[in-house]
């Protein structure tokens, strides 16, 4: 009974913290000036350790619980965990192919795991031998691009989502690729190579690889604004949001940014960039035009909350930013939901 009481107090304290945060945000400024409003949190009971990247498909959100060796499947309508995929050592990148109804999850231990998108039964493991990390899905070609390897083995490979077979398509990069982005209107893949202080530009048609040398270090997350030919990169040393012109490779801007970032998203509708950082903030930048950027808001979040998910407006205009908050102290891990506002 004493235990139960203790737990209730903890749970209540947790609720209280959440509600005060929600209230604190409410009273701080009129709604129009708040780009992200914390509106809810989905508890991930029992999920331990670091949380890595997010994936999305329709109503479901996929969260790589790296330190827990699971992928948590969340229904965003009910905001409940509907499934826990177990048996993946240190999952990192996660993508879903709606066309093939398959979930792809990358393991830092070197394998790509492929699951049925309904039952989440394991269909296949593909061994890339080292640090499978970021994944990107090309829906047109039904192809999953796989960032993997270390130093000399670092590369982006490809898997056919319909056959689950690894393809010959492969781009050797000479370093472990962190975040990379696929161009939809062109052949390029842009990849962060922090170990080489470079961004690699891979032409999927010609297989040519060019490289941009960086003055900033530890370039991890990345997002692409194809319409304006801009690439956004989160650097950790020093902590900057760097903006590159994809036509020239020139750095257009570098703004002070939240520290320890691992996820960054571009909101094309609002011309904003969302950056989650383990320092304990989400930074929102406004793109005034292709060459001019400004910090719009610095939203306190939680220590270690360095990854998140933003997947644009849903069909009915539901527009949410998701932030992973790992378990800390007596509180369970959670996925926070921020409502995106104009």
């Amino acid at each position: 009974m004493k235990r139960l009481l203790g737990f209730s107090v903890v749970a209540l304290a947790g609720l209280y913290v959440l509600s005060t945060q929600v209230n604190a945000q409410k009273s701080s400024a009129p709604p129009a000036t708040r780009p992200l409003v914390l509106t809810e949190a989905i508890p991930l009971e029992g999920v331990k350790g670091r949380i890595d990247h997010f994936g999305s498909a329709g109503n479901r959100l996929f969260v790589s619980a790296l330190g827990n060796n699971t992928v948590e499947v969340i229904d965003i309508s009910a905001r409940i965990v509907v499934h826990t995929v177990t048996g993946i050592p240190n999952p990192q990148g996660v993508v879903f192919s709606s066309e093939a109804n398959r979930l792809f999850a990358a393991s830092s231990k070197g394998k790509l795991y492929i699951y049925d998108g309904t039952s989440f039964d394991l269909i296949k493991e593909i061994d890339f031998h080292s640090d499978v990390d970021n994944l990107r899905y090309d829906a047109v070609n039904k192809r999953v691009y796989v960032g993997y390897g270390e130093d000399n083995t670092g590369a982006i490979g490809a898997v056919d989502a319909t056959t689950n077979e690894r393809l010959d398509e492969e781009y050797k990069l000479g370093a472990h690729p962190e975040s990379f982005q696929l161009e939809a209107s062109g052949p390029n893949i842009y990849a962060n190579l922090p170990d080489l202080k470079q961004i690699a530009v891979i032409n999927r048609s010609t297989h040519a690889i060019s490289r941009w040398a960086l003055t900033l270090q530890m370039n991890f997350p990345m997002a692409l604004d194809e319409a304006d030919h801009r690439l956004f990169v989160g650097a950790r040393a020093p902590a900057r949001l760097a903006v590159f012109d994809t036509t020239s490779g020139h750095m257009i801007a570098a703004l002070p940014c939240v520290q320890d970032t691992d996820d960054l998203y571009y909101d094309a509708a609002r011309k904003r960039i969302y950056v989650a950082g383990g320092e304990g903030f989400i930074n929102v930048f406004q793109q005034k035009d292709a060459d001019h950027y400004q910090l719009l808001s610095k939203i306190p979040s939680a220590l270690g909350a360095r990854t998140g998910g933003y997947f644009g407006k849903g069909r009915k205009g539901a527009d949410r930013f998701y932030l992973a908050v790992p378990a800390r102290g007596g509180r369970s891990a959670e996925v926070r939901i921020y409502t995106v506002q104009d």
Partner: protein
Amino acid sequence: MRRMVLTCLAATATSLVALANVHAQEKEPLRLIRTIPMPNVKGRIDHMDVDVKGMRLFVAGLENGSVEVVDLRAGKWVRSILGFQKPQGIAYVESLNKVFVASGDDGMLRVFRGDTLELLDSIKLDLGPNRVAYDPHTKLLYVGYGGKDAGKDYGEVGVIEAKTEKHIGDIKVDGHPGELLLDQSGKTLFVFVSATNKVQVVDTNKREVVSTWPVSSQRNGDGAFDERTHRLFVGTRTPPRMLVVDSQTGKEIANLATVEGMDGVYFDAVHKRISVSGGRGFDAGYVFCYQQKDSDHYETIGKISTRPGAGTSFWSPELNRYYVAGPAHDNEQAAILVFEPVS
């Protein structure tokens, strides 16, 4: 050592939560007792009303341009009335043997004979007729319309004499009206204006707005009223919240998370529960159930899975049934999901 104890406590707490969740799933507040397919009904489904004596459910097939009639006794779809343009609100008035149907895209309120369902009359309003509310004391029917749908910066609530089918007046409101909630006396009408995130309180004798209350979230499309405790339950879509508001002052009493794509809010006065259905525009549908512990305290007691896109619902206290409209999707026909509250 102390850490270990704490870890053990945390682990125990986690297992307790897991147990509680399992337990909660075992005893859901609503039990699905029947699924009634509605053949050939395509697209989004809107509001409903029930004929308690005749055990018929009228369902607005919004994108199908139809009103569907379901026999609740037999558990069978009976017929479609076709040819509407965006049918939305439906009111069955037993004492007058009439069914009123509001159509958004042609600006009409149509009147049908209740038993035979033959068309009796068509009342031309402006574009956007949506929800309807009937006052049995005065035999007046209120119809929300206008606003953005009609290219206007204000909305209207039309006053219809249900017996004569005459449009006898209008009440000007802030924007296109969503939910309309009448009190039992028929003297107060709550009008939800989702475009401006407000609830407007109308004095039906004066036919004018007497109070306007902002709500703390956006797009307050649907609601319910517990007159005994003076509480309005307001469903909002951005973000998805269920707000409890004092119906005398407009003050917010509670604020709880609710389902995405919210499109139906009902209060079950017997079980003291609020049900919020949602799923419109989403690949999954749920009903969130809340227990009213007292007028100021509410608790989420269930999240019941329904169907993809299932936004709207209807609660019949007389039949003790909660109906959720599931639109057709993939290879599945549209259907009415019939739920019974579990005590």
